[in-house]
Structure formats: structure tokens, C-alpha cells
């Protein structure tokens, strides 16, 4: 029985390792900044999720007590990760994207980042 439990825990650890690796590999392979932003979202969902599942399994099945710290870590990650992604994306739009290059914002005409007063002397990095 112990063996099956260890197999299950090892499975979750390997899953998290694979997705953590793919997330970091994506940071190197993807070339444009907006696509790079996609890579860490994988590391924070299944990458961390796998470790947390393995940790819950270990404490319940092998140590024999219920541990729910892991649920809190998931909760805090899901609260904070989208905020950082949004901030990086907004920074990118502010510095590198022109209103013409983005899709039409419908009746509001501009996206919120462009609706503030534009600073003219922004260096142009849009080529990278």
C-alpha cells in the first residue's frame, strides 16, 4: 500500500517538474515580450499545483494527518499572479504599443493604458 502512495506522490512531483521546466523553457524560446508573459502562468498553475498536491498526499497518506496550508498557498497565488501579469502587460502596452496596433476598443475608443496623457519622449523598443 505504501508503494502505491509513493507512486502517486512521485507522479504529482514529476508532473510539476515537467510543467515548471516547460514554463522556464518558454521564457527562452518565445521571442516577443507579450508571449513570454504566458510562460510563468504555467509554472504557477500546474507547476506549483503538482507540488502542493504531492504535499497534501504525503501528509494525509504517509504522515497520517490533514494539512491544509497548501490550499492557502493556492489561494494566495491565484490572488497575486494575475495582478503581476496585468502590471507587466500594462507596462508593455504603455511603452511599446500604439493605439493603432491594438484591436478596436469599441465605444470606449481607447484602452485604459492609452487613455492617460501620453509622454512624447518614449524610446522606441518595438522592434525587439
Amino acid at each position: 500500500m505504501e508503494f502505491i502512495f509513493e507512486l502517486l506522490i512521485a507522479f504529482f512531483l514529476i508532473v510539476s517538474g515537467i510543467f515548471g521546466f516547460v514554463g522556464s523553457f518558454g521564457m527562452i524560446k518565445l521571442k516577443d515580450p507579450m508571449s513570454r508573459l504566458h510562460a510563468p502562468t504555467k509554472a504557477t498553475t500546474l507547476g506549483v499545483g503538482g507540488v502542493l498536491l504531492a504535499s497534501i498526499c504525503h501528509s494525509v497518506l504517509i504522515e497520517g494527518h490533514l494539512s491544509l496550508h497548501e490550499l492557502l498557498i493556492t489561494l494566495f497565488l491565484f490572488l497575486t499572479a494575475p495582478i503581476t501579469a496585468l502590471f507587466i502587460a500594462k507596462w508593455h502596452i504603455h511603452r511599446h504599443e500604439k493605439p493603432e496596433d491594438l484591436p478596436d476598443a469599441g465605444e470606449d475608443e481607447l484602452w485604459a493604458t492609452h487613455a492617460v496623457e501620453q509622454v512624447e519622449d518614449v524610446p522606441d523598443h518595438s522592434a525587439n
Partner: protein
Amino acid sequence: MELLRRIFPHPQLTILLTLVWLFLANAPSLNSLVFGLILGIIIPFVTQPYWPDRPKLRNWPMVIEYMLVVLWDIVVANVTVAKIILFKRDADRQPNWVCIPLELRTPEAITVLAGTITMTPGTVSCDLSAQGHNLLVHCLDTSDPDAVRDQIKQRYERRLKEIFE
């Protein structure tokens, strides 16, 4: 009833804070339950002025359904995106902006929708239009932005509308 509302201005937050405290303590005991309840009563009471137009959550079964749908989508999307990163040539990838017209008007509901889109691999919510009527989403690889838009509206926005509005 009025007195009860005054002591518990935000009953759901009270329950949430107590639960979070119990999870933090990580060992269920009367001690941590009592202290969690004390925090759960004091914090909503003190922060009450900061919640002027708090939305009412209706339809609790839908909340559970929404969480399960999102978790399932995260697993599926992780595999899809891993395939794109590992096996697709970078030149073949078609990154795209997608504009999602919002039917949701509650700020809290829009926040939840944007967070969900970001946490689902393959899409990142990037900006809101100036008056908050559209959401700008960046898609890692899609040849059909309209399909992405319809899927997000169908799977997430419809359910959030039932939960919040």
C-alpha cells in the same frame, strides 16, 4: 436582525477569514477557531467603510461549478500550451490580441473574469477599455480570435453573470 447586520456586516468575509485562520493554524482546535472568529468579526467591522457597493453573491452552486470548470480548463490548457512551447516552431505560432466586449458591469465580477483568463494558460488579460466596456486579451497561439472570444464569453462570463448580477 438589524443588530445582527451591524455586528456581522459581511457574513461571508467572516466565514472566509475564520477558515483562512484555521488553515493557517493547520491543526483544528477550539483555540484557533475562537481566535479565527474574533478576527472574522473585527476585520469586516473595521473595514466596512471600504465596501460601499458590495455585490451580493447569489447562486452558490454556480460558484462551485465555476471553480470546477476553471480548474479543469487550467489542466487542459496547460497541456495544450506545453505542446505549443515544446513542439511548435516559433515562426509558426500566431500570437494575437483578442477584444472581449463585456456584459458584466460589477467591478468585482470583471476582476474575477480577468484573473481567470490570466490563470488559464494561453491567454493573458492585458487591459480594460477606458470606460470598462471591453477587455483586451493576449492569446499565445490562435488563428481564430473570434473563437477564443466566444469560448471565454460562453464558459466564464455567462457563469459569472449568474453569480454576480
